[in-house]
């Protein structure tokens, strides 16, 4: 039995020393901004599209988006790297304590930042408080066939491992927790540990440039841990002390 660090009020230590941490490394030098991860994520997680007007008004539901900024002036202009931005699964997530309904919580088993859809009442406080702005809100009933008749057919594709969210509910990247559980269940039934690289998230699986690596960051020998030790590694908005679980490898 392990000591419950929570009970000891050892706040920082929880995130640092926790077991079972999953993490991700994204190599921005490799990311080509091709959107395969976005499409894969949408297909895996039953993410609704919101159509032109809402999409242009900041209501797109992407759980992962590639950000890009310009550097310099023509002709010395360049794109300063594509940065896929997704839930950083913070060790100390600012979104969690502000939810009055305990709808977004820290999971002890996977050390992830969970969103419990059916607890969510839609105050959107978590989204306001997310420094990474990676939470998306169901502004309408995008997946209801009474609102969108085409869903009747499109829904054949829906992943039965992932629920469909209705209006008024916040959602975000889950690190494909359904895949984590599936792999863990399988490993357990075979009486072994989940092996590094045995499975991966939908985005990492699709990424043609192999820019995304997923795995256990509490296992120092895992690929993701090795990559995270790269001198190019950095965390986004690290100064906030959110202990993000996504490491970015800078260009150069």
């Amino acid at each position: 039995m392990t000591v419950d660090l929570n009970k000891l009020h050892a706040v920082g230590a929880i995130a640092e020393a926790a077991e079972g941490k999953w993490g991700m490394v994204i190599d921005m030098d490799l990311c080509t901004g091709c959107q395969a991860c976005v499409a894969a994520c949408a297909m895996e997680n039953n993410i609704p599209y919101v159509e032109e007007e809402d999409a242009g008004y900041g209501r797109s539901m992407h759980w992962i988006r590639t950000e890009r900024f310009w550097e310099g002036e023509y002709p010395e202009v360049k794109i300063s790297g594509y940065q896929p931005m997704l839930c950083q699964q913070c060790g100390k997530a600012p979104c969690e304590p502000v939810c009055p309904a305990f709808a977004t919580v820290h999971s002890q088993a996977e050390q992830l930042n969970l969103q419990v859809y059916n607890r969510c009442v839609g105050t959107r406080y978590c989204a306001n408080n997310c420094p990474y702005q990676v939470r998306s809100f169901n502004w309408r009933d995008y997946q209801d066939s009474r609102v969108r008749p085409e869903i009747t057919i499109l829904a054949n594709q829906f992943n039965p491992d992932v629920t469909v969210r209705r209006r008024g509910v916040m959602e975000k990247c889950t690190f494909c927790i359904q895949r984590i559980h599936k792999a863990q269940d399988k490993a357990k039934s075979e009486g072994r540990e989940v092996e590094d690289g045995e499975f991966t998230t939908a985005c990492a699986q699709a990424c043609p440039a192999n820019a995304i690596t997923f795995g256990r960051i509490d296992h120092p020998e895992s690929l993701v841990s090795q990559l995270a030790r790269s001198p190019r590694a950095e965390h986004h908005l690290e100064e906030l002390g959110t202990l993000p679980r996504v490491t970015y490898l800078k260009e150069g």
Partner: protein
Amino acid sequence: MSKQISRRDFLKLATAGAATTAVLTGCGPTSRFVDREPYLKMPEYTYNGMSTYYATTCRECAAACGLVVRTMQGRAIKVEGNANHPVNLGKTCARGQATLQGLYNPDRVENPVKQARGAQLSQETLDWNAAIQIVSDALQNTDPSEIAFLMGMAPDHLFDLVSDLANAIGAPAPVRFGALGMFEARATLSKAAENLFGKVSMPFFDLENADVVVSFGANFLETWLSPVAFTRGFAKMRRGNPERRGYFVQFEPRMSQTASKADEWIPLRPGTESLVALALGRLIAEARGGAVPAAFASIDPLTVASDAGLKLETLERLAQTLVNAHHPLVIPGGAALGQGNGLAAAESVLALNALLGNFGLPGGVFVSPLAPAQDAYHRPASAKEMADFIAKMKSGGVKVLFIHGVNPVFEMPKQFGFAEALASVPQVISFATFPDETALAADYILPDHHGLESWGYQRAVVSAKPVLSGAQPVVTPYFNTRATADVFLAAAALAGGKFAAALPFADEVAFIQSKLAGLVGEEGFFAAPEINSFTAYFQQYGGWWTNDPSLATPSAASAIAKRFTPAAAEFTGEGEFFFLPFVSPTLGEAGANKPWLQELADPTTTVMWNTWVEMNPETAHELGIENDDVVQIVSEAGGVEAPVYLYPAIRPDVIAMPFGQGHTAYGRFAAGRGVNPADVLGVHFNEAGDLAFAGMKVEVKKTGKKKILSRLESRIGVYGEGLEKE
């Protein structure tokens, strides 16, 4: 990394594969599908709560990426890459991911219909027997020379079947076309290879082993030839060698997504690509010392630099970089070839590679191998050949036209007059899966299955190993559709005589087996002693490929000795702007009907759901144009109107537009959305007969209208709008 999951998947696949064998040997076509049934009544081989994975081939473009589709209770749930497939090694692009939204698209052609060239999809459904009768009658009652087949770039097995049929009955060989091929200028590249290597082939660029890559317009990270394969190669080039990060330079008038990943983007004047390549060659030769080879002798780098709008130092520095490189590689492609002098550009770049001495070396240039069971390389029709075909249609030389897998009414520039030519064909039979513009203009639509419901094979275009990628249905057909191959087989059987003799196959699978027969016993990813086992493995592993690369080394001598008469490209049109259409990296040629592809942000502009016009902010400022102002792009061929995106990385004398939107049909997500830049293009070819799509100059006219583009990015945060600092 994903090796583990694949191994487990393949265990499942093995079960499915073995089952398929039993099915193949025993039953007729219909029982080959996993039924889509209510959850209470499970289809065979599926277990409640358990996924079944099927290997197949992606049909969103012709690159032949291997897929493993996760299905559950008879529904296709998720597309994953086939980790063993040499083309994509388990990876997919966004279009491949969204193929499921094509499968379960609300706007598919659900039944065979008598379309009668109506504006809307006809409601007059036929039964399949009547449909087969119609095809059979058309085959029998028409003079073979007046039968024409127009096929898309995929699938290859259907093309082979139709070729065999045409060959046997004495009809002209089927014509193959696709907008991607047109915008890639494939014919130009293969023509250049033919001219320099003396062999009809596709050159193979070994991106992953190169360490300095210079690309002239090749948009290989987007849609060019085989984007997933190239993106993998790019990643290896960049970071594969822990000692040295690959260096990448792109010459292109507009920063494409590919160029945005370059360490140096060099915006050269459109049409000067061949000059710059030759000048680089001369500078390299001079830097190395010794004689300048013939190919580069007559060029003056200083003049070239000023013609191309570049600094000579840039070229000199780049030449030095290439000289110092261990594995330099220069790639021609995209808009560089879609010029009046596109062939010269392709040839000069190949010559430059020859000068760099990378032929046949890792990170260099090779000749692509032929796919397994392929006799010779067949490239798709060039625009010139399409123009000839259209002329034949117009002159009444075609009485019956079968169209499958291509939508030329949308994809070809209007000026070619395909729609008018279609009107002079008495009978047009379309096999379209979706009610696209061409299908609506047909007399009958006899819908083919979606790619994920189909059998077939596809040859990889870009692969060091010869790959024949296999396709099998992962789900039972959702609608009342039928495989076009089966329709032809049934029609031929019905017609009897030479038709039946030409296609003596019980069904599509029997035909495919006949094509695979030559591979039985061959050493490869798997080997099988007899055809049924081979077919089963073929479906199970998603195709067959050799274990080792079989790349050929072209001869450098002839390339380097070719004498060029360097000249910048000629441009047609009166306008002051070079016009640069490019294929939308997210939509491709046919993605517009998939809502999630529409909602993907264009990588460089982040625009969603629409067409835009890219313009340099300085130019726009001079013209008094702002973001979201709708402008009219006018050429000799016509005009289109679209809102402006002030794009910081485009030459001030160039405007660019994405191709992929502007459908008038093709379902609710595509129709009436955006405009088609092909409408602006005139009928001009390069020396290889490819369309000089980037060889026009256009005018830009203000309309006074505004249309807010939906962008994922923030205009405030990215461009500082509303935050101007004093």
